């Protein structure tokens, strides 16, 4: 993200601030994804100093709102204030994203999903791929509840469905 930002603003700033900057950064990310065969985009914020709400909205929320994209998005290298800004804008939109905290492998959710979907996300992130029956067994839920939670996660592009199984998003 630091590299994309420097290219977008043609200046050595490390702050993701203002809507025009956010829009320019998002456009570059979308162009890179369009040219790539990768299924999952990992956006690394570790070189970024400040993320304001306008930029979080333009980059992260609008990237998720872009319809018809085939890719998944995971964030990494976020500091607490980055997480706070991104969580705020995604919650406002009713969106969610997977973010890997520094020094961890298991991702966390930022933004808004229903409580069951959040629990299912944590379970799959820890256990690896599960199907409806496996998740229901792991959480002591009826299958209908498990199916609904997995449906929510699929809708939010927070798990990757392959056949009967739901995979956590790749984070490395």
């Amino acid at each position, binding site marked *: 993200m630091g590299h994309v930002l420097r290219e977008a603003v043609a200046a050595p*700033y490390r*702050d993701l601030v*203002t*809507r025009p900057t956010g829009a320019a950064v998002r456009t570059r990310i979308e162009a890179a994804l369009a040219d790539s065969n990768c299924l999952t985009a990992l956006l690394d914020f570790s070189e970024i100093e400040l993320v304001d709400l306008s930029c979080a909205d333009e980059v992260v*929320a609008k990237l998720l709102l872009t319809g018809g994209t085939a890719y998944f998005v995971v964030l990494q290298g976020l500091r607490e204030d980055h997480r706070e800004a991104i969580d*705020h*804008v995604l919650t*406002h939109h009713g969106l969610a994203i997977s973010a890997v905290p520094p020094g961890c492998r298991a991702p966390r959710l930022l933004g808004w999903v229903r409580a069951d979907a959040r629990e299912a996300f944590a379970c799959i992130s820890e256990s690896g791929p599960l199907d409806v029956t496996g998740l229901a067994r792991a959480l002591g839920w009826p299958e209908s509840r498990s199916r609904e939670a997995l449906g929510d996660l699929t809708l939010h592009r927070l798990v990757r469905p392959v056949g009967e199984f739901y995979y956590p998003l790749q984070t490395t």
Partner: protein
Amino acid sequence: MTKVIEVPTHFDDRSFDAFAAGFGEWPPAEKVLIDARGTQWASPYGLIGILTAGQALAEAKREKPLLTVPTSDEVKRYWARAGFFRHAAELFELHGKVPRSGPTGPSDVLLDVTPVRASEDVHGVVHKISEGASRILHGELGLEMKATLRFSMALSEACQNIVEHAGTSGWVAVQAYTFRRRLGRRVVVIAVSDAGVGFRRSLESTHAKRFGERWGDGAALEAALIQGVSRFRDPGRGQGLAFIKRFLDQWEGKISIRSGTARLSIVPPWDEDIPLSDHLPSFPGAQVQIIIPAQDPKSR
């Protein structure tokens, strides 16, 4: 005829209305002289308010106004150190001896009076503030380290409101000082002002209808600050002020916005301001003030 407008002796958000009243109808027909000779102190809000008046007169194609500088050497030196005269010289015919800017280095002026014309300026403001903000907010005011970044975020969002909504340029200044009369503690104050269309006109086409006869400067401020609405239909808009409000609540901070003839404040327990003041003397654009006080030593 020249209309003389006296700058209050103690010029801040409270005495601003007396300054605004001096102009009468906007834009005033007569030539304007802003008389600051007797001014003993001005907050960042006051300083950029004077520049906003000068800018509004220039944009209304009025004759270049006059500005008599403060008599007090100490006051003049502070105004010079805050970068006021550098910009005032472009908007006013200055009368009185203006000192050169003082030496740079650690100072209570976290951000000189800075013009905000485009989003590139917001990048510059955020970049410039980062080091000094940490020294003051964490070192002096006792706020947690992460407060510095929230503070920069608030500053960024407040400045962007000019670029996104005012329809013209504006000004920002940030300073730390001791709030003796109201609080008895150190504070950091962000002041942002523009000479643009104001909240009412900015929101009118999209929001006036649902307010009906209540629509006016006060209702527009309520819509923006309390309800988080924006003139844009994009649902991601209007979150900046909501976020600022949220973090100010944690730190017992205060935000007040004046636009047109109204001023709306989120009033913390230490202040006795009126939440909504209406029917004030008209003034162009919008003026925002954010105050973050030193944390109570008992709670640190």
